[in-house]
C-alpha cells in the first residue's frame, strides 16, 4: 500500500496540470449547468461572457481533459516499449494497476460524482431519487475511462493513443458495416446499446488487465480487436425476441392494464381528424376502438401494423391514417384539444392506393398488431407571476421556473425546466386561462427531452427551455403589470410509460362499409360542443 501511495503522490505531483484542467472543466461544466442566460438579452463582452463561453466549451473539453488525464497517468509508467526506467525497478504490477485505479477514482470519478451530486441538489432533486441515475452516470463515465485506459496501455504516447482511438473507431465502423451487411439485422433497442456498452467495457478492462499482467501489446491489441468483432456480432445477431422480452419487462403497469377492443357498436365518439386530401379521405376506412383500464392521467397513442385479407385476394397492408390518442376525459387534459377519450374512431389507410378499389367490396379479415405508445399526462395551474419575477413550480418530475415579460403587445412566458437524465417529457404545452376562457399561445418554441445530451456521462440534469407568447386583448395590452393579473397559466406535460404491441382481429371487414360517411350516417358521433 505504501508503494501505491508513493507512486500516487509522484503522479499527482507530475500531472498536477492535467488534474487542474479536469477540475476546472468540471467546475466550469457545473457552473454552465446551473447558470441560466437571461432570455432575450444580448451579452456584451465581459469576464462573465468569457466564463459562459468556457462553460459552453467544457462539454467538449471535459471529455478531452478526462481522456488526457487517464492516458497521461498510464503513460507515466508506459506498458509499451522496453526502455522505461520503471521496468527494471521493484515495481509490483498489481500495485501499479491499483495506483492507476486510485488515481482515476480520485481525480476523475469522484469529482464527476461530486459534480453530479451538487447539480442534483442544486436543482432540488433528492439524492435518493437520483441514486440509480448517479450510479448509471458513473458507470458510463467508467466505461469512457476504461476505453481511454485501453488505448493508453496499447500506446506509448498521447498522440499514438489518439491515432489508435481513430483506428479503433474506423475498425469498429468497418466491422459493424461488414456484419450488418451480412446479417441484415439491426436493432436500436436500448438493451442492445447497454449490452454493447457492457461487453466493450469488459473487453477494454481485459485489455488493460492483460497489459498490466503480461505486457504483450500485440496480444492485448488482438483482444481489443476481438472485442470489437464480438460487439459487432452482438449487434448484428441480437435476437429481436430478447428485445421484445426485455421491453415487456420494462412496460409500466399503467400501460399493461389497458385493454383495447375494436367494437362496431360504440357511439358518442369524437369526430376523427380528416385527411386534407379528398382522394386520400375517400380511401380511408374507420373502425371504432374502445380502451379499458386507463387511469385518469394515462393515455396512449395508437398505431398499427396490419393487413386486410380476403379469400381470393392478395393481402393489402394497412396503417393508422392519423395519430389517435386515447385518454379518459376525466383527466385535467381535456383543456388540451387532442386529449380524446377512451373511445375513438380510428382511421385506417390502405398502404397502396390501388388496393382500395380492389378490395373495397370484399368481405375479409383485418388483423395484425396494434401498437400502443403509452404516456402519462400532468397538468398544473398556477397564477401568472409578476413581470420579470421568476416563480418556481414542479410538474411530472421537472423542476421549473417561469418568468413573464412583455414583448411588444404580447405577454411572453419563459419556462426553464430541469429534470433528471435521460429526460422523459414528450410534450410540454401551456395555455392561459382567464374567466374560464382558454387562450392558445400565438407563438411557442421549446425542447422535448426524450433524448439525453452528449456525452451522456457529463450531467445528471437535463435542462429544457420553453417559450410562448400570448396576444392579449387591447384592453389588457397596456404595459402595466395589472394587465396580467387574474390570469392563470395551465401547463400540460406528457411522459412516456412505454410501448406495447397487441394482436387484434376484426372479422367481416368490408372496407366500403366503413368509410367516414357511413359512420356519420349511423350517428356514432357525439354532438358538437
Amino acid at each position: 500500500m505504501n508503494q501505491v501511495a508513493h507512486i500516487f503522490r509522484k503522479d499527482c505531483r507530475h500531472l498536477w496540470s492535467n488534474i487542474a484542467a479536469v477540475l476546472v472543466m468540471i467546475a466550469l461544466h457545473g457552473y454552465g449547468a446551473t447558470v441560466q442566460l437571461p432570455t432575450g438579452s444580448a451579452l456584451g463582452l465581459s469576464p462573465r461572457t468569457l466564463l459562459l463561453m468556457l462553460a459552453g466549451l467544457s462539454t467538449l473539453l471535459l471529455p478531452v481533459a478526462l481522456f488526457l488525464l487517464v492516458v497521461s497517468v498510464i503513460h507515466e509508467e508506459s506498458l509499451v516499449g522496453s526502455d522505461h526506467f520503471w521496468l527494471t525497478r521493484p515495481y509490483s504490477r498489481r500495485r501499479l494497476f491499483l495506483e492507476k485505479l486510485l488515481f482515476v477514482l480520485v481525480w476523475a470519478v469522484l469529482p464527476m460524482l461530486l459534480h453530479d451530486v451538487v447539480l442534483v441538489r442544486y436543482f432540488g432533486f433528492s439524492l435518493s431519487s437520483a441514486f440509480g441515475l448517479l450510479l448509471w452516470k458513473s458507470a458510463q463515465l467508467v466505461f469512457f475511462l476504461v476505453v481511454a485506459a485501453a488505448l493508453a496501455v496499447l500506446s506509448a504516447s498521447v498522440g499514438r493513443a489518439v491515432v489508435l482511438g481513430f483506428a479503433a473507431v474506423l475498425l469498429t465502423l468497418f466491422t459493424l458495416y461488414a456484419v450488418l451487411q451480412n446479417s441484415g439485422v439491426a436493432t436500436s433497442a436500448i438493451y442492445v446499446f447497454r449490452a454493447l456498452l457492457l461487453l466493450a467495457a469488459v473487453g477494454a478492462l481485459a485489455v488493460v488487465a492483460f497489459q498490466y499482467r503480461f505486457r504483450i501489446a500485440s496480444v492485448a491489441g488482438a483482444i481489443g480487436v476481438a472485442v470489437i468483432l464480438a460487439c459487432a456480432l452482438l449487434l448484428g445477431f441480437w435476437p429481436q425476441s430478447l428485445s421484445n422480452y426485455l421491453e415487456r419487462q420494462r412496460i409500466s403497469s399503467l400501460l399493461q392494464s389497458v385493454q383495447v377492443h375494436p367494437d362496431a357498436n360504440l357511439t358518442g365518439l369524437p369526430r376523427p381528424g380528416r385527411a386534407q386530401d379528398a382522394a386520400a379521405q375517400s380511401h380511408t376506412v374507420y373502425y371504432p376502438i374502445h380502451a379499458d383500464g386507463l387511469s385518469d392521467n394515462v393515455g396512449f397513442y395508437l398505431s398499427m401494423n396490419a393487413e386486410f385479407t380476403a379469400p381470393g385476394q392478395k393481402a393489402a397492408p394497412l396503417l393508422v391514417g392519423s395519430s389517435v390518442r386515447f385518454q379518459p376525459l376525466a383527466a385535467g387534459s381535456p383543456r388540451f384539444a387532442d386529449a380524446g377519450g377512451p373511445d375513438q374512431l380510428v382511421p385506417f389507410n390502405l398502404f397502396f392506393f390501388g388496393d382500395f378499389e380492389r378490395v373495397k367490396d370484399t368481405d375479409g379479415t383485418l388483423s395484425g398488431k396494434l401498437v400502443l405508445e403509452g404516456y402519462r399526462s400532468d397538468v398544473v395551474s398556477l397564477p401568472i407571476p409578476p413581470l420579470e419575477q421568476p416563480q418556481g413550480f414542479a410538474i411530472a418530475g421537472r423542476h421549473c421556473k417561469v418568468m413573464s415579460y412583455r414583448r411588444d403587445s404580447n405577454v411572453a412566458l419563459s419556462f426553464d425546466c430541469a429534470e433528471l437524465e435521460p429526460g422523459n417529457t414528450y410534450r410540454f404545452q401551456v395555455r392561459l386561462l382567464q374567466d374560464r376562457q382558454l387562450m392558445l399561445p400565438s407563438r411557442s418554441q421549446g425542447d422535448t427531452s426524450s433524448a439525453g445530451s452528449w456525452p451522456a456521462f457529463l450531467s445528471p440534469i437535463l435542462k429544457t427551455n420553453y417559450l410562448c407568447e400570448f396576444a392579449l386583448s387591447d384592453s389588457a395590452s397596456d404595459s402595466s403589470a395589472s394587465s396580467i393579473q387574474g390570469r392563470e397559466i395551465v401547463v400540460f406535460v406528457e411522459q412516456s410509460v412505454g410501448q406495447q404491441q397487441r394482436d387484434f382481429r376484426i372479422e367481416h371487414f368490408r372496407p366500403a362499409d366503413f368509410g367516414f360517411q357511413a359512420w356519420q350516417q349511423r350517428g356514432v358521433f357525439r354532438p358538437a360542443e
Partner: protein
Amino acid sequence: MSSVISTRHLSKKFLSSEAVLDLNLEVPAGSIFGYLGPNGAGKTTTIKTLMNIFVPSFGYATVLGLDSRRLSPERLQQIGYVSENQELPGWMSVDYYLDYCRAFYPGWDADLCDALVKQFDLPREQSLKQLSRGMRMKAALVSAIAYRPQLLVLDEPFTGLDPLVRDELVEGILGISADHGWTVFVSSHDLAEIENLVTHVAYLDRGCLQFSEELVSLQDRFREVEVTCDGPPQAAIGWPMTWLKRESSGAVVRFVVTDYAEDRTPQQVRSMFPACRDLSLRPMSLRSIFISMAKESR
C-alpha cells in the same frame, strides 16, 4: 565460484530475426563481466531478457538463482540496472529522483548516495532532462547502486560520453565493486572503454556467443604474429582455424593466433612458414582482440 547469471540455450526471436541464439553463459559472482560484441550483436536483447523485459523464445536464464521470467520486485531490489537507452523521468530533479527511487529499496544507503552525488558532482536541484547525457548516466548510476545491489547490470553505459566522464564512471564502478564485492555485468561494443574494468569477458556476434572466459586467460591465448620470410611468404597446407586475420605485405605476413601456447605456437608457425627469417609474437590489447574477432566474423 557460483554463477550470478546463468543462461541455458537462451534464444530470443523477433518475428523472423534471431537476436540471440542458443546462448550458454555463466557470470561468476564477484566478477566484473564484460559482455562484448559489435552493434546489433544481441547484447541489449540478452540483458533485457535477463531483466525480464523480454521473454525468452527458447531456453532460460537465471539471475541471482531465479528464473528471469519470475524476477519479483523483491529480487529487483538486489539488481541495479543502467542503460544508455533508458528513459528516465526527465521532469524529476536529481534530488527528487533519488528520493523517489529510495522508497522502493529497503536497503537504500543514504550516506552512499550522498557520497556518490558529491563524487559525481551532480546538481541536486536540476531536472534530469536539463542534464547532459553524461550527468544523466551518473544520476542513473547513483540511483542504481545506492541500495548496494548484489548485481549491477550496465548496458553500454559509456556510449557517447566524453573521456573524462567515462573515466569518472569507470573509477566509480571499480571503486564500489571492489569495496563491496558486487558482480558487475557490463556490455559494450568498444573494448577500450572497459579494458581496465573487466575481469571476465564474453564475446557475442550475430546472436552467437564466440567465447566467454577470464580476461587474463583470453589475453594469454591471443597473440599478434608477424612473420618475416626470405621471399614472398608461402604458407604450408593446413592453415589452422584458430589463426585469424591473415594479411601479407611483401615478405611479411601478419595474423592472430587465438590458441597461443608458449611451448607449441612458435614451432607451429615456423613449420607453417619454412622460409621464416624472423618471428615475433606480441600480446594483444583487448581492443585488438575485439577488432580481429569482429573482422573475422565479417
